[in-house]
């Protein structure tokens, strides 16, 4: 038997290793946003920056950071709202349909989430080009909704199933219509599930790069990930600006993780689909 204090020490070392592995490279990188150009490329590295805001100014004024941010907000926000609404309708139906049909449809929906993006990218691009939706917000939002729907449907269907049907029968007897039941009874009781699905959908749409790169070729419509990937300086790589843009992009995600860590963990293990 290993003595107690030694086991505690081992556990603590593990925790420190895990936190260091996850956070230290990221913290060091985003701190570059507050450094001057000389500090960024200094050897030995400067661990604590001067808190210069030159990079932020340059990212905002020279590289139009807020354009990209606005595009990301429009695309991510709309995709989340639409995916949640459609997912809630479908999820409710699947929670109440006979099990064997529901199971069949749920497995089919799960399969849709498994296709490699490249298998759908070419045809989607040709379709969007044919109808003139390349470089349009809805041209990117619609594929995002389709790609996040499986996760939303799974999380919500499993959540709605836990709500006892007696509640609904009672409301129906009292003269409530079926759509009324969904809006007045099911949805208010399901805010945790809606939240989980919404957070995961938002993270997916906010971070997605491959389709955004194909569909948004006009810089005025590009989202943050595309902007960060294609960042170009005049002579050298503008690390300060890239780090500033990265920090601003990840800030909302970090806030989501800090506040809703438990929901994310539960949601991912329930759906077990990568968001």
């Amino acid at each position, binding site marked *: *038997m*290993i003595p107690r204090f030694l086991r505690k020490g081992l*556990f603590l070392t*593990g*925790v420190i290793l*895990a*936190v260091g*592995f*996850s*956070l230290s*490279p*990221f913290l*060091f990188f985003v701190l570059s946003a507050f450094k001057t150009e000389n500090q960024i*490329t200094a*050897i*030995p*590295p400067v661990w604590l920056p001067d808190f210069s805001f030159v990079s932020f100014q340059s990212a905002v004024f020279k590289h139009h950071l807020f354009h990209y941010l606005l595009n990301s907000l429009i695309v991510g926000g709309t995709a989340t709202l639409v995916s949640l609404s*459609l997912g809630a*309708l*479908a999820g409710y*139906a699947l929670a109440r349909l006979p099990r064997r049909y529901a*199971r069949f449809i749920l*497995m089919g929906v*799960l399969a849709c989430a498994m*296709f*490699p*993006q*490249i*298998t*759908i*990218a*070419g*045809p*989607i691009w040709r379709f969007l080009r044919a109808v003139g939706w390349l470089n349009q917000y809805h041209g990117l939002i619609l594929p995002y*909704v*389709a*790609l996040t*729907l499986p996760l939303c449907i799974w999380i919500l269907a499993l959540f709605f199933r836990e709500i006892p049907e007696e509640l609904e029968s009672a409301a129906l007897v009292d003269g409530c219509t*079926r759509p009324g039941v969904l809006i007045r009874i099911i949805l208010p009781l399901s805010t945790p599930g809606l939240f989980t699905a919404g957070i995961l959908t938002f993270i997916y749409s906010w*971070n997605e*790069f*491959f389709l955004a790169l194909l569909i948004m070729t006009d810089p005025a419509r590009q989202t943050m*990930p595309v902007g*960060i*990937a294609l960042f170009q300086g005049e002579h050298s790589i503008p*690390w300060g600006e890239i780090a500033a843009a*990265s920090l601003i*992009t*990840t800030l909302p*995600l*970090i806030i989501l*993780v*800090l506040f809703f*860590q*438990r929901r994310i*963990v539960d949601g*991912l*293990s*329930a759906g077990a689909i*990568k968001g």
Partner: protein
Amino acid sequence: MIRKNQFFLLLLLPALSLLVLFILIPVGQSFYLSFHRVISGLPQLGEAMVGFENYRDLFHDPVARHSLWTTVIFVGVTTFFELLIGLFLALLMHRHFPGRGALRAAVLIPWAIPTVVAAQMWRFLMNDAYGTVNYLLFGTETASYVPWLAYPATALGAIILADIWKTASFAALLILAGLQVIPPEINQAGLVDGAGSWQRFRHITWPLIRPAVMVALLFRTIDAFRVFDLAYVLTQGGPADATNVLQLYGYKKMFVEGWMGYGSAISVCIFTMALFLAVVYVRAVGRRLLEARV
């Protein structure tokens, strides 16, 4: 009763039609395109049916073969380490201790940030002149600094490392879900019977979380086949195609060079491999496990 089911089908309609329109039909069209010669920039050439020509060319394309091997190495190595580190992280996150919430949040951060940001971060850390990785290894001796992204082997190693950093926490979450359903009494029974911590892990925990580990393996393998963002930002497929993974190669053929038909043949091959793996895993895990969740 019939009206009730009709109402439910109506609710399903918008979601299912979007899935059909933006996922199932495109997958079908990819198959169709892969049997045709389609060049994006030259619509006047039409879309001639060429049978298996694209697949024959693909079979004899040395870049494609190399790309396949690169992807297989990437998938194998990243999945292995992600599951290993994921298991370790899951065991840590499962313990009850005052800082558990903070630990979980910290571990989730790499998963939550955009892959593009993670890629730029590693590109910065691995810089040949002022990268922190070089500093940590060689100190101020700048003469021995290694241009990690300029050598084929180390460049592939770099995208592997970046992927492990980014997604080990996702594997950890799936394994954690398996840990959470183990009733604590079983472990206590093992403790009473005098089993050590390794014995308890080997004979109690491991058999019970094996299905969760298999699910994590399934999702990670299929997802690793889609690697694109990291290679695009870190190396653009280079040097000498060392990191030209399949999805990146397909992207270049289809959208940079405009060979829609040939690129579609590549994407159909990626699809077939992912499907094959999924079937193998689902058989190994047993369908019941997936269906038990439904």
